[in-house]
């Protein structure tokens, strides 16, 4: 396949940035999207130009590092995948592809397609944990049976990879799906009950402080989430937040 790429180039956080046109040829449909960008970068390096900077690491859809906004969609046109799992068979010969960074006030651009998502880490520092020491001096793992359905739902929430596609897809740049998933994981498990009140209040406060927007229930986040994290998690977080607020 031969393709035209319109890629966001931005030298650093202070640069204004712009879309730049590139051409790539002989792209195999079996390539992943990032392997197609590898081909472009090899071309650029050989010409003496600077390669396009983009985040990536595991290239198997689990580390959450890759983060491209492709033709107006986080992680591109396929469903249930990250950018590294997107394959070129989703495109046609002659296509023009727009490639931009995830855009949100709380995700400032570092360079080209790379954004700073440490705001997600700071939300977790505020309460994304159970305060149990790592000494191993706890009760036997089977001492508290957990209803399989609760365990499975907690697990589904916990499969969030923290990529930020939910934020990038939301017209309000809301992080409610991300925070909702973490709050839900702990809310569904008996181990998470002890600190439930503080956890949800602290995490939501940090989320607001970071400049993420509010949720208006359009559901775009759920559609674009590579791990299929459900909107129910937002509802569960709101419920937890209400309970916590009433407790004071």
């Amino acid at each position, binding site marked *: 396949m031969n393709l035209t790429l319109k890629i966001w180039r931005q030298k650093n956080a202070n640069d204004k940035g712009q879309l730049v046109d590139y051409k790539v040829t002989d792209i195999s449909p079996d390539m992943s999207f990032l392997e197609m960008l590898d081909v472009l970068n090899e071309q*650029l390096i050989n010409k003496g130009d600077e390669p396009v900077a983009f985040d990536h690491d595991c290239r198997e*859809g689990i580390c959450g590092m890759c983060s491209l906004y492709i033709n107006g969609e986080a992680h591109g046109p396929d469903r249930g995948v990250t950018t590294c799992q997107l394959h070129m068979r989703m495109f046609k010969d002659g296509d023009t592809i727009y490639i931009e960074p995830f855009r949100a006030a709380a995700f400032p651009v570092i360079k080209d397609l790379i954004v700073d998502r440490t705001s997600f*880490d700071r939300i977790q520092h505020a309460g994304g*944990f159970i305060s149990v020491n790592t000494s191993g001096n706890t009760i036997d793992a089977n001492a508290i049976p957990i209803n399989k359905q609760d365990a499975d739902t907690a697990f589904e929430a916990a*499969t969030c990879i923290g990529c930020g596609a939910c934020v990038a897809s939301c017209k309000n740049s809301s992080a409610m799906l991300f925070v909702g998933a973490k709050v839900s994981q702990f809310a569904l498990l008996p*181990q998470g009950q002890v600190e439930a009140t503080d956890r949800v209040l602290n995490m939501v406060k940090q989320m607001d402080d970071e400049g993420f927007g509010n949720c208006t229930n359009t559901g775009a986040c759920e559609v674009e989430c590579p791990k299929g994290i459900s909107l129910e998690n937002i509802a569960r977080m709101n419920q937890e937040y209400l309970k916590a607020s009433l407790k004071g």
Partner: protein
Amino acid sequence: MALDSKTPEGPIADKWTNYKNHIDLVNPANKRNIDVIVVGTGLAGGSAAATLAELGYNVKAFCFQDSPRRAHSIAAQGGINAAKNYQGDGDSTYRLFYDTVKGGDYRSREANVYRLAEVSANIIDQCVAQGVPFAREYGGLLDNRSFGGVLVSRTFYAAGQTGQQLLLGAYSAMNRQIGRGKIKMYNRHEMLDIVKVDGKARGIITRNLITGEIERHSAHAVVLGTGGYGNVFFLSTNAMGSNVTAAWKAHKRGAYFANPCYTQIHPTCIPVSGDHQSKLTLMSESLRNDGRIWVPKHMKDVEAIKNGTLKPKDLKEEDRDYYLERRYPAFGNLVPRDVASRAAKERCDAGYGVNATGEAVFLDFASAIQRYGKETAHVKGLDENDAVLIKKLGQEVVKNKYGNLFQMYEKIVDQDPYNTPMMIYPAVHYTMGGIWVDYNLMTTVPGLYCIGEANFSDHGANRLGASALMQGLADGYFVLPYTIGDYLSDDIRTGQISTDTKEFDDVEKEVREKIDFFVNNDGSHSVDYFHKKLGKIMWNKVGMSRNIKGLTEAISEIKALREQFWKEVKVPGANEEYNEELAKAGRVADFLELGELFAKDALNREESCGGHFREDAVELDGEQKGEAKRDDENFAYVSAWEYKGEPSDAILHKEQLEFKDIELKQRSYK
């Protein structure tokens, strides 16, 4: 320097307890005056950082990713072993110990492995308390599955994302300490060298990957949890950024590098599809619980499948060769990884590979789908003879167990594994070799520790499935926090280590010189050009099957490639910016040295053991004909290499392995 493993005296089951009872401790007030650097935030580094901070030390943690949660432990799929014996199927600490030593082909240190088995059960307690959502049965208790090379079900799991869930557990423990200010976290920082003061590790030099700033960080001890070096093969299941640089720099500063040739080639990965390939994707070993591995019996069927005239699912049972079940009836599809990989290679080399490149075998779920379908129909009182219904019910069970893996496969290969068998082939996955450490997990450099995959200690020449996660967390949560205290108890009066010293000046200067070279070198080839060439040499001559001629050639080819690299490598851009090519150049420079030592180690070890298979060391007759032949008389030792300049000058030190609690036997899975 003579190698001293510092293994405590006494019966094996009492060593760890006795050891803990007699080490020096640091009181809580003094811990506040002691700094520890932890490099790497995977299961080993992350759990160590959290625990050390919780004990009261001041921890500085470093990772090259944008968040500690993205370290490559996140990608581990299948599970974590623990000798809980919840299934009542005969498991015990001893049995886990025994399986691990045997699985490692008797090339690991008994005392370390026993300790690992001993603390394993506690890991599960810890993780559940942290809110790790392991898979459960309907009664609410934890579920287990079985992994290769063992006869019990001791593997705990969270679908096919166990590594992710465990890492997020360790990350949450870190977050708690970051929130308290006890861990200072440095994301997007790469360690570029170790600084020693008076022979002790006292700091590191890092590069801020966003700004290019070169920074000095001091501490009373340095811990490396920086993972394995599988990317020396270019193509592996490792993340793109996984590298040997931290470990290699430690080696160059005096840490011996042990058994570099022990590399695990994982049998079930998605085959290479073309030259553009940037990495390989693993399909978890857990799939071998339910998937059956086969190739056609007859060459005409191989051809028909390749040219598309025969669909694999239409090939009759009697025309299939389930070669693992045929060769190893006792363990069948659940033989250890090294054995399964070599058996796949043997069939493909003989021409029975089932894809265009001839390097693929089938992993088939049809019989599991049938079995589960019938079981479910029986439980629900439905018609067990309704083929369509059985298939549907069976697929649902399989989806529940392995859904994410099947989805990954489908996205990459564009085929539906519920309806046609998966194609798989072995790929580089894990490195058992690594920095040599003693019982305390300290390297040959005082104050420099190495944990997790980065060290060599627990898996011998082959790691059993679901044991990497166990080792990472055992080292970080339960072993290092004790052993490092014993060392740091001498440092309570030392005070803060200054970075404004000649030692830091000198190392920083070396680091800067190398960076200056890269950005100013007017070369003609990209970093990847060299990395791919290195990978080809490694895979073809130092891969699954090794011989003297190939290894000798590899050594000289790698050396020549390294020389070419230092003349012709091209790195665009500058240091003072985000520059991935610059970061890659430093990593590949180190791989080009490690690769040669790796081949040298493989040449030295004139036996076949675990992942190291020498064509000149095989059983010539009897029941085991064609199987790997170990040589305990001459090679029951750890090869620990001392750096002396060029890899060819490295000096071999031997740690003789003693087996007092397990009888040395030929490993048989037949």
